[in-house]
């Protein structure tokens, strides 16, 4: 028998007792509860100041945040780039958000990994921000670049607009479902790359960007 058929046969025979109604009350009883009654958790959170919480929670991960008005984004991006000169800017990124005087690298044709490794920073937009968890999410559509762009350079500057910031994870998951259904990959980012693998001592910066700067517009 092929592995596929064999595994599916094993699964069905493991569950035979259940289907015959002989299932004991142990173990599986939670699943037999109405799915509706088991969804009693909060789907939205009542937050007095969603944007302030977003800022606080992003900063909690040792990432920095600059809040700015829509016409000052380029200046905030410039400040966030902290001296980086060679910067990747993905196609579709709002041109009015790009500061003057940068050595801009385009990903066209696609940069090789080692070429990307020689770039100091990347500037992108995002698709969703999550206040409670201090998370930004990229769906890698226009303005965000393919996944490698926000991974290999050591500094990531990400512009998030106020209308993109939701309360908590369930609202974010709902907003992202169209991206997932369209087959887009997602990257959820909560602070810079980090590890606690040595004596549980948190260290910011391992393989991903060691510096994350968020520009919040509005």
């Amino acid at each position: 028998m092929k592995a596929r058929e064999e595994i599916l046969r094993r699964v069905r025979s493991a569950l035979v007792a259940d289907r015959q109604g002989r299932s004991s009350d142990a173990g599986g009883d939670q699943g037999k509860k109405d799915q509706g009654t088991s969804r009693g958790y909060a789907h939205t959170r009542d937050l007095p100041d969603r944007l302030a919480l977003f800022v606080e929670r992003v900063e909690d991960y040792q990432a920095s945040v600059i809040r700015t008005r829509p016409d000052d984004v380029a200046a905030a991006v410039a400040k966030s780039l902290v001296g980086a000169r060679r910067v990747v800017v993905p196609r579709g990124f709002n041109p009015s958000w790009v500061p003057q005087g940068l050595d801009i690298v385009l990903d066209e044709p696609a940069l090789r990994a080692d070429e990307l490794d020689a770039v100091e920073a990347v500037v992108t937009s995002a698709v969703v921000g999550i206040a409670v968890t201090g998370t930004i999410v990229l769906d890698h559509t226009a303005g965000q670049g393919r996944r490698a762009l926000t991974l290999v350079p050591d500094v990531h500057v990400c512009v998030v607009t106020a209308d993109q910031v939701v309360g908590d994870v369930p609202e974010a998951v709902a907003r992202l479902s169209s991206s997932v259904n369209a087959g887009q990959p997602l990257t959820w980012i909560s602070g810079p790359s980090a590890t606690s693998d040595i004596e549980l001592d948190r260290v910011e910066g391992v393989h991903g960007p060691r510096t994350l700067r968020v520009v919040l517009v509005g």
Partner: protein
Amino acid sequence: MNKPATSNTATFLGMPPFPVAAREALANSQLRRNLRHATHTIRSKRARVVEELDDWEQLRLAGAAIKDDVLGNLGGYLEQLEESLTRAGATVHWARDAAEANQVVIDIARSHKVDEVVKVKSMVTGEIELNAALEAAGISAWETDLAELIVQLGNDLPSHILVPAIHRNRSEVRDIFLREMGKVGRPAEADLTDEPAQLAGAARRHLREKFLRAKVAVSGANFAVADTGTLVVVESEGNGRMCLTLPEVLISVVGIEKVVPTWTDLEVFLQLLPRSSTGERMNPYTSTWTGVTPGDGPQEVHVVLLDNGRTKVLADEVGRQALRCIRCSACLNVCPVYERVGGHAYGSIYPGPIGAILTPMLRGVGTDEATDALPFASSLCGACYEVCPVLIDIPEVLVHLRGKVVDSHRGGVPGALQAAMTGASWTLRRSSRLALAQRFAGLSGRVLGRRGLIGRMPPPLSRWTDARDAPAPSRESFRAWWARTDGGRSGAGSTAAGSTAAGSPSDTTDEGGEPR
């Protein structure tokens, strides 16, 4: 091409059973200090972030319900997942056991003529001992998670689900890096200190050349969404993103219980997992991908759906709940047994309370002495159940498996346990026999009961006394006391002189003061 100078095929096979391994681990005071510090740190971080959510219990209920729905309809969800993955451009493979899964990975790697792969930390590839299989096939598997790197370079075994090198302190890590990195790639700088930030920097430089040149990556998955074909990897360091994004070919080995029905279900697990696991509101990076994305990431995507004993667990109606596990490791961090003996004593990639139930069910009760010892590696205190984000009643399953272990040893030459139980049954059937037994017990109490405790007994009783303190039998049984004092009503109501053993009725010695 660089080859591992030392074999990276450390294995749990042939490790001594838990009681033996635990005794050795307990003697290692450095290990106990490392573990105590680490488990207490994560434990309090977790408690803090769980406290922040007033709907935590509802989230746990939902997590358990979603997983139970999956397990109860697993065949249908697996077929749906296969269809969604295939539609999205992924190639789906099925593997009944470790050998089949390893062969799939080896064949794909060979078809691309590579002699190395980069790996994201994954429990399941540890379970199937993929690295050893790849090495035997002439392919180096580079672990890229910092702790896995420490374990691999130290030719060591993982001892924790989340922090596999939890048993190593910073100076041990520094020594391993200085000694081993140069043998398999870019060496660590000679002036490397034992600051964690410096050590992480050394790992970044050492692994970056491997990430940039790798053609094939191997990962696991935390979740696999049936209706969209989306896989999810939850991580911290960015090594996962490197492996999932830069190579041309990605192979993900996924246990069949990892499926969740819909994308929306992740709203529950992406709250439960990071808070339970690292004690953070959210882990630094979560990657999701749906088959192949043109122009972004690997253009050849494989998914290996693995059984390897999971259907055996599914067939156990009490034990099945263990398949809800999302590998957060919260149960390890609160376990008083784990905290003292560490992960290696469990002799499995899955240590701690969840390992004590999962390993025997995956391998099968009665397989060997080491496996059968695991359900007994617990005090049944229940702390694991209290923190489990998907409500796995680990103590219930432990007791259930203890019964199965005993049953599996019935027949043949009766063991000490069986002999003792048969004896107890005979003794308790007649009150005269019990009275006689108690008189002997009282006598033995006088002999054995220095400090009120029984010390080390000869075999087979040593199997009990080696691991436990047992109070010595009282010098006078309750029945004897009752007969002598007419239930405390006669003047001689005090207990036998000098007896302080717990349970003696010395608190009823007031002279007939009780109302009739």
